[in-house]
């Protein structure tokens, strides 16, 4: 390879590096700006767009009351439900049928930060609801909603580990 080819190669490498930095910088900036825009109501379209953007395949189930919608999906092998109450607040939960005690439930609530466990008794059957809610009226962003969903994955993993011990 002669000197001319080497020089051309170096110039090309520098150009590629500069273009890569420039494009990723612009893309990152645009993505950060879009994801950090604050709003105080989460319309269904917006939430569904966020879920699709996270590659979450969901089944939308309208609630009994107008403006309430549920989104059922699988994540990490668990069945999750995301609730949207008129865009004003979100709720995410996973249900478990394991036998438990209120002491065990309280033990989780002592250590948890981003969720709570609640024992639901209905028709002689007990269900554990691991849940988290987010008040949107103070303001939310797309990134905050994504973090809310992603964070709950960790809560489920930790809860399963805690409850099985």
């Amino acid at each position: 390879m002669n000197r001319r080819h080497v020089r051309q190669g170096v110039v090309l490498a520098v150009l590629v590096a500069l273009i890569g930095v420039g494009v990723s910088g612009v893309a990152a900036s645009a993505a950060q700006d879009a994801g950090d825009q604050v709003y105080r109501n989460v319309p269904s379209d917006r939430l569904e767009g966020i879920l699709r953007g996270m590659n979450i395949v969901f089944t939308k189930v309208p609630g009994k009351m107008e403006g309430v919608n549920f989104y059922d999906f699988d994540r990490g092998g668990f069945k999750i439900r995301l609730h949207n109450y008129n865009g004003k607040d979100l709720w995410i939960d996973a249900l478990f049928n394991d036998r438990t005690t209120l002491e065990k439930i309280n033990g989780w609530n002592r250590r948890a930060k981003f969720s709570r466990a609640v024992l639901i008794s209905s028709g002689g059957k007990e269900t554990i609801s691991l849940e988290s809610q987010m008040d949107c009226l103070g303001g939310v962003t797309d990134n905050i909603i994504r973090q809310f969903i992603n964070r709950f994955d960790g809560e489920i993993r930790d809860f399963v580990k805690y409850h099985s011990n």
Partner: protein
Amino acid sequence: MLHATKVKVLVLTLLLSTAATAGAQEPVYKKMTPEQMEGLMQGMGLTYKKITGMNPGTFYYDFNRNNKVLRLHFFNGQDIMLDALYDRQPLEMLNKWNTRAKFSRACLHKDNKGEFVALESNLDIIGGVTDSTVRNFFNTFYQEITAFEKHLGGSSTPTPMPMPMPMPMPMPQVGGDDTIFKNVPPERLEKVMGALNIMYKKSPLKGGGFFYDFDYKGSKMRVYNWNGNDLMIDAVFKTTTLDKVNQYNLQRKFIRTVLYADGGNQYTSLEANIDCAGGISENMIRHFIVTFDEEVRAFAKFLGN
């Protein structure tokens, strides 16, 4: 030589397309519904008046910005247009604008009230747009308005349009800031508490961070700031039963009640947490503290205090 050049072009193309793909995070629409458009406008904090056009699928959204009434024209989800109206101007002035402007045009229109100028900008949706594209379209038009009015010499004022009726929407917090940050340094939290006239006692947390004890509207509370990554707020009550805390957790949102028995000291804690990793603003922190006061009152009532 020619072969080497072709390879270089191919590598460049592959790298650029990979970078572009990596940067693309939002879904792309080729047609928008009015609800999507309205959701975006609400997300931008715009309060609008919606008017149904004569043609099916056509809607107009009038909104105020900096004391100027703008109109978004929604054409069946396939394209949108923004405009702002001004008094009549000489055609030479409008043509001069049109020769230099990139993202708008100025046109002379006429209706039954006379002639007027419209500064207009259009966005074609059919080719594909994202939420960011639409937001950027709005922001660019605002810049076009500023430049156009400078071009007019500030001698023209927008043609008055009927003021839009405010839509019943949640009002933003008065004061404070919606700027998003991903970590809450102590000074930032202390600034929010100061704005709420909270007199606090600050103490260090084991493992890093601080906690703040204070009275807020007669309720004793504590806010914890764990190295700016997440916040917690709690209030302590007399002990109760596990059944009662579970019952309360079933009834309420945004909090949890927990029984503690530390060294013979039994008590109930009402708690709420906020994860800052996804982003947080001063307004959100303020809302977090203020709404917890309502939770404290509700729980006190539940316990029969």
